[in-house]
């Protein structure tokens, strides 16, 4: 899969995609290692080149606290869009399920590039809005399903 096919760079030419990814650096996250923690400052966004990243939320199970996986991201997908969206705090915890390679894109450099190339920035931010909107819609539907079950339980 080529880099311009990544969800964040859809609609961007290959040359521009290479220019954007050149802003960042590549990191390797071994299986089981944490990429970022819930609530911490989000300075970067990440593009997965290889591997699998799980996004989790903490949940209390009895006396224990466990991370419950709520989403998975694989090659070609971005994680950490909180780096581009205020208030720039991660709302989930990210860990590698497999050995993973990622491109780390610092927000400051990305926004500077978008300022210099607004047409590219427009396309990329449309993609980011689509990714954020998709999560919102999925969780909205999940929440409504839970509420429906709650109502059925209470009325039975």
């Amino acid at each position, binding site marked *: 899969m080529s880099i311009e096919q990544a969800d964040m760079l859809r609609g961007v030419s290959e040359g521009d995609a290479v220019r954007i990814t050149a802003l960042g650096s590549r990191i390797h996250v071994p299986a089981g290692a944490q990429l970022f923690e819930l609530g911490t400052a989000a300075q970067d966004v990440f593009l997965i080149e290889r591997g699998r990243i799980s996004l989790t939320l903490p*949940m209390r*199970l*009895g006396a*224990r606290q*466990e991370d*419950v*996986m*709520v*989403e998975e991201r694989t090659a070609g997908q971005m994680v950490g869009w909180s780096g581009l969206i205020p208030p720039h705090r991660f709302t989930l915890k990210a860990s590698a399920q497999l050995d993973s390679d990622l491109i780390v894109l610092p927000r400051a450099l990305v926004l500077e590039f978008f300022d210099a190339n607004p047409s590219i920035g427009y396309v990329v931010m449309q993609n980011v809005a689509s990714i954020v909107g*998709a999560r919102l*819609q*999925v*969780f909205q*539907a*999940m929440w*409504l*399903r*839970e509420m*429906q*079950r709650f109502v059925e339980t209470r009325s039975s």
Partner: protein
Amino acid sequence: MVMFLMVLCMSVFGLAVCGLAFGAATRGLPVGDETPLAAAVDERLAAVPERFFVRDVAPQPAPAARLIPQVPVEVFLAQIERHIRLEQAAAESFLSAPSLESLHGRTVSPLVH
């Protein structure tokens, strides 16, 4: 004079009859070491259950609701994650073809049955 004596005798006789009647009526009651009225009332109150409107057995506190079933946490965690995957799939199915049926369609998750 005779009339006066007659009335006097009748009065004395009536008084005597009343005295005898009173003595006969009160002969059965205990005298001397009888139980005071307050103590008798206390005994009766002690015999009455303390909670008049409830059963004699004190209600036991309701056991805390068990939100975590009696399965290992790892198993329960796996069930939760499977439930989330199924719910996400159902939500995505709804988003691809929005309808009331697809929104509230059942999954095979054991956590909702």
